[in-house]
């Protein structure tokens, strides 16, 4: 319902807005055809077929070749892409998408509604756990004609539209995948999409090259001739490549946060921390509730109060990101600013632990917890070292154990940890990206579920209520309620709303224009002369 008329109008209005309101034109710079944009891709993904692989680097690079039905503005309004308009029935169950005309796949075949139906009902439902969870709500999905797709849901599901960005459900060519094993089909090695850039070459360990697709459906676009992603494994080498102009753009974790202050000083570079509104990654200290005394809410609250989040943002991340106030990021829908975790206060935290019956022993500690730093770069080790200091102030000894990404995923997935760090994408709506960490029905032996084992029937009921309510107002009530409970119970100790800086040469225009940052098609990006 929320998307029906409003969605249509937003769609009609924002297509020109997206192009016209872009920074470059506001500054009066006319788009320039031509040029090669060199960027970096870190770490190198195993395959670039979105859906088969959903890693961060794939989600950044693949949307140049693949598109979704829609994409999203920084305030998470849907913007038309392969769907030029859409309507929703008043009961929120029926969605009808009208598709763009004259869209071709990179191999010259026409794009039709059949591709959309295949992508939703077969490809992503088979491959992607995230899509599977949502698309099983679909009762029928049919191509009414070659340019119209009609979807009927079993029940109203308000965040449904959020699943149609390229990063969630990119539309893939039916003629290259249907009837084959999707993971091993030849197209996985040579991606074919509808996007503005077509796959040309991938020298593993060296670079990925994509070239302008001349039959792209937006007239006159894309502006760039070539996009090249260099694979540079060392973070200092990446910084050098950017500073020396050998690459023009860095994204995600290419650059370590502690290098950002120096890069801000360079007159030719721009540091942009926007473009993470759709993903809204939230970081937290992940607690295993099966380990005593982490099952005690007073302990968790005290630990949360001992952490100075402003210090983490300002001193460790150098101002990139902001302190978390609860389980929902402020950029995600249904965030409630009134539900806040208790403020930083070491004295009260100590008093809380004393009162809860965890006295300090002779050596000054109350108890010891094992802690696994997140093995995703030096910044996370620094964070864990800070946490060890913070916990020492309230008499909790953190025993740090280093590990690598493989062991980390295995141990968290198998619940073989006491505390660690984690960060999780919220995908725009608490039902899509927040619920999974807290409801007892999602306690699974795999990462990014409720691995902590938190269980509260009231929280389960409220998330379920918010999931199934059709009206935004009803959902807001349930989400506000659950946020109030969670900030008291602190099932995970939320730290910061993460953002990853996009650093680029000022010549590169229109880099961040949507809520998906660099995970967009780049059809409007150009290099000013």
């Amino acid at each position: 319902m929320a998307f029906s008329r409003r969605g249509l109008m937003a769609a009609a209005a924002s297509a020109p807005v997206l192009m016209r309101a872009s920074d470059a034109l506001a500054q009066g710079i006319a788009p320039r055809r031509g040029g090669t944009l060199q960027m970096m891709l870190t770490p190198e993904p195993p395959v670039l077929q979105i859906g088969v692989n959903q890693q961060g680097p794939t989600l950044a690079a693949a949307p140049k070749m693949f598109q979704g039905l829609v994409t999203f503005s920084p305030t998470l309004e849907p913007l038309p892409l392969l769907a030029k308009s859409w309507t929703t029935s008043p009961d929120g169950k029926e969605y009808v998408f009208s598709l763009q005309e004259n869209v071709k796949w990179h191999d010259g075949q026409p794009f039709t509604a059949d591709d959309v139906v295949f992508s939703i009902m077969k490809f992503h439902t088979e491959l992607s756990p995230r899509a599977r969870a949502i698309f099983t709500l679909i009762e029928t999905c049919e191509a009414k004609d070659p340019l119209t797709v009609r979807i009927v849901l079993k029940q109203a599901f308000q965040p449904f539209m959020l699943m149609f960005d390229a990063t969630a459900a990119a539309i893939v060519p039916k003629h290259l995948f249907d009837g084959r094993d999707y993971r091993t089909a030849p197209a996985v090695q040579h991606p074919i999409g509808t996007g503005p850039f077509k796959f040309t070459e991938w020298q593993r360990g060296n670079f990925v090259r994509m070239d302008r697709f001349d039959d792209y459906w937006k007239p006159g676009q894309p502006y760039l001739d070539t996009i090249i992603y260099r694979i540079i494994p060392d973070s200092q080498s990446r910084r050098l490549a950017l500073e020396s102009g050998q690459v023009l753009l860095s994204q995600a974790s290419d650059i370590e946060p502690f290098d950002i202050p120096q890069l801000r000083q360079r007159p030719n570079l721009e540091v942009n921390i926007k473009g993470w509104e759709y993903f809204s990654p939230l970081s937290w200290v992940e607690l295993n509730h099966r380990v005593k005394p982490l099952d005690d809410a007073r302990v968790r609250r005290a630990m949360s109060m001992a952490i100075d989040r402003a210090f983490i943002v300002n001193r460790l991340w150098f101002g990139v990101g902001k302190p978390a106030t609860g389980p929902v990021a402020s950029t995600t829908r249904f965030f409630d600013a009134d539900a806040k975790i208790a403020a930083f206060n070491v004295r009260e935290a100590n008093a809380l632990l004393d009162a809860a019956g965890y006295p300090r022993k002779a050596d000054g500690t109350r108890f010891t917890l094992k802690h696994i730093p997140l093995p995703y770069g030096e910044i996370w080790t620094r964070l864990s070292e800070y946490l060890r200091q913070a916990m020492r102030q309230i008499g909790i000894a953190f025993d740090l154990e280093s590990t690598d990404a493989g062991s980390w995923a295995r141990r968290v997935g198998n619940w073989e940890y006491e505390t660690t760090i984690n960060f999780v994408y919220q995908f725009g709506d608490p039902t899509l990206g927040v619920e999974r960490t807290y409801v007892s029905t999602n306690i699974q032996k795999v990462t990014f579920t409720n691995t902590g084992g938190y269980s509260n029937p009231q929280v389960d009921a409220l998330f379920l209520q918010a999931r199934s309510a059709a009206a935004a107002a009803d959902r807001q009530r349930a989400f506000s309620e659950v946020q109030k409970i969670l900030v008291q119970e602190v099932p995970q100790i939320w730290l910061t709303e993460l953002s990853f800086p996009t650093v680029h040469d000022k010549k590169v225009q229109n880099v961040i224009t949507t809520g998906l940052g660099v995970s967009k098609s780049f059809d409007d990006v150009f290099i000013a002369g």
Partner: protein
Amino acid sequence: MELSRLPGFLLRRGIKAMIVILAIVVCNFLLIHAAPGDPASVIAGQSGAADERFLAQLREQFGLDRPLYEQLWIYLKGVLTLDLGFSHRQQQPVWTLISERLPATLILTGAAFAFAIVAGVTLGTLAARRVGSWWDSVITVIALTFYATPLFWVGLMLVLFFSVWLEWLPSFGMGTVGVEMHGIDVLLDLGKHLILPAATLGLFYLAVYARLTRATMLEVADQDFVKTARAKGVPEGQVVRRHVLRNALLPVITFAGIQAGQLVGGSILVETVFAWPGIGRLAFDALLARDYAVLMGVFFCTSVMVVGFNLLTDLLYAVVDPRVEVEG
């Protein structure tokens, strides 16, 4: 060396080498599978969302749901027919992945190897000839410095000096990407990209060879046969080349044999710092991703190289010094 004994020698060593390599393969297999985590859990950890069905699907596809001894048997059968398996993570045969990356590593390590030997032996000879002079002191100090400095630091400093400050050489990669080039330009471009990583990798070995050559030359120079050569009026240049250097080369060859064995696997650090698309990084990434087949494939190639170069070194001994006999 009597040529008639060579075939028997090669046969005996060949059989030994096969046994050693098979033992290495089995050890590698067991060690790698002992590391916590598997490719499926790594992919789940990197995907941002996962469920148990996703894990089960991946494990089935990767063949991880079979018992370990069965996986080992399948792998051994493959290796015996020179089939290194398939990387399910990257959807490519392991041999394709390795052969794509092998040339880059061989170019880098080959260049570093040649540079280290030629420059190292020359500097060592020079220092030994003028022992005690300022030449000797300068060469010894330089050699010691490179010997004691960590590789990655040398690399970064070279980049700072030659790429950032002087802007003479590119700081990363194996070639200019996105520019059409032909013929000699491609080679020149490769050469420009090769200088810094090859120098970084070669400097340590250069120091070793220089010190080794200097020490053994001084030792040999005092021996009777050198005095005899001088006494019978052989010119000094010939004394050094024929009598001193040739005898002093044995330990250098030993060491070169060891270095050559590491040509495939020993350059992870330099490949990382200079973003050189070689096999060391392939192995490192495979380790982090628990891409078992790729990792074992690289180890297999490395162990074949080590065994092969050991054999070659033994043969070279006999060529340089006919008194050494080859024995199985």
